[in-house]
């Protein structure tokens, strides 16, 4: 069955776009209903998973656009940008990484997901979520700083422990 085959991957996508699990489940439900309704439109060109994934992402975008979009400022503008060490990937679990993205404010999270994970450019993002390109750039930069701060916070005790030895 279509749902059984793609539920796990699509749920991970929904978790990235949602603030919490309940919202992710809403996105999942709305997205799969659209998938079932539009199944007849699938032209067998390309991957079915990619098609389902696109529907999920657009469902998340629509969900986001329905909410009032506010320019969120969280004071991360002045955070330093330090490269993330490759070792962090081994230290952090997939749930923790997903949790970091979910912890971003709505606008940041949406722009970061679309740009970094889905591969849209700023012009496309601006069209999709109904904002200016400069806003998209600004929110992406802030999202990056915020995520870097989270990674730093998560990985610091590990480095500190190494230094004590």
């Amino acid at each position: 069955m279509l749902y059984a085959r793609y539920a796990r991957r699509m749920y991970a996508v929904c978790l990235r776009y949602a603030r919490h699990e309940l919202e992710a489940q809403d996105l999942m439900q709305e997205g799969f209903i659209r998938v079932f309704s539009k199944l007849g439109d699938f032209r067998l060109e390309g991957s079915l998973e990619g098609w389902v994934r696109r529907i999920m992402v657009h469902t998340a975008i629509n969900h986001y656009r329905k909410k009032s979009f506010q320019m969120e400022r969280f004071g991360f503008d002045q955070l330093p940008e330090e490269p993330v060490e490759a070792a962090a990937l081994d230290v952090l679990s997939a749930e923790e990484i997903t949790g970091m993205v979910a912890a971003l404010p709505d606008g940041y999270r949406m722009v970061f997901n679309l740009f970094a994970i889905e591969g849209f450019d700023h012009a496309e993002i601006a069209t999709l979520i109904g904002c200016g390109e400069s806003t998209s750039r600004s929110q992406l930069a802030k999202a990056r700083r915020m995520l870097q701060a989270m990674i730093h916070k998560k990985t610091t005790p590990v480095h500190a422990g190494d230094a004590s030895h």
Partner: protein
Amino acid sequence: MRETHHIDEFFRRALTSAAAEPPRELGASILAAHRKRRRALLWRRRSLVALLALLIGLPIATWSHRETGNAIGDSGRRSTNERAGGGTSHHGSDGTPMVTRSVDAGQPSDAPTGQVTTEALNQTPAPATPPACTMNGLSAIGSTSETEALGFGDQSTLGSTRETSPTSTIDRSDVDSGMERAVPLALIARRSFTPTAPQVGVGGLRTEDYHKPRGQWWVGPSLSVQWREQNWKGGPNELVHALEGNGKPIAAAGMGIAAGRRWPSGLGLWGGIEFERSQQAFRHTQRYERAQEQVVVNQLVTLNASIVFVDADTIITMTQQERVSEGADHRVHLRLPVEFAWQQRIGRFVLGPRAGAVLEYTQVRATSSLAIDPADGLVRATNLSPEQLNQRYPLNMSALVGLIGLLP
């Protein structure tokens, strides 16, 4: 050029192929929500289809079924399935009122089956009859022809009759049949033919995961029963009321063959051909008054074969008469229905709205028909020619709105 960032790369590597186990109940919840939304959507579409069919069908049904040619042609004036009934009273020698029923020409030998009844209604008592006297060499006074027609030719009194102010006056000869309402019930035994579905698969997926069948053709015989109720309007009230067939629905039975296609979305389209038989009875009652004048000679004095003195009274007898005309039309309908329906599975059954149009040709093998006699403007039963009958029931188009149900 697209900018790259180490944070982006970090999260892309970590999340692109990430998977998470959704709650177990989420699948069932999605399925239930999908069904609920689909049902709501379908009912919205059904309502729209029904509304459209109603909007299209009502005008069609209104302008169809127009009836023309109710007037009797000159060639048809003598044929009749009607008797003028009634009675008139006169007084016998003992002064007792008597009722004599008049009888006019009976049915022609080739007249079709049509029952005829005659009935006298009320009698207006005539004034006291003065004593009659002997008449010698009396010249005719008054019209004898009508008297004979009423059976008084051999009476000892002279008189004439005339119809006065009939209660039914007809001033138009066209009647619009208006809208015909019908309740059809059709039973179709269907044999379905499913075309072979193309077997397509992508990436190891099962075909049934996303492939939907493209529909089914079907064909089968049909039996139908329907009740028609025609509301005639316009024209003279008398004819309209008579044509209503006493306001009772007309039952019709038919059979035919139908074929169509049903798509996976539930949309079905089919057509067919049906033969149907029906019978419409009619009965028309016309009341009018007749006045009979009788001249009674009380005293006649002659001198050398010349009348020198006449004493006579004129007696007018008013009689209410009722003329009843009735018969039946036996109709054969050839129907070509084209319908579409939105059929949805509800449990083991399939149910949905249907709408369509029916082209219908009606041939009347019939008996007497009611028509207006242009000679006196009265409604009479008559045998219309096939051409006149076909004018009365022309080719017409009807709209159909209803429900369809399929048994498993």
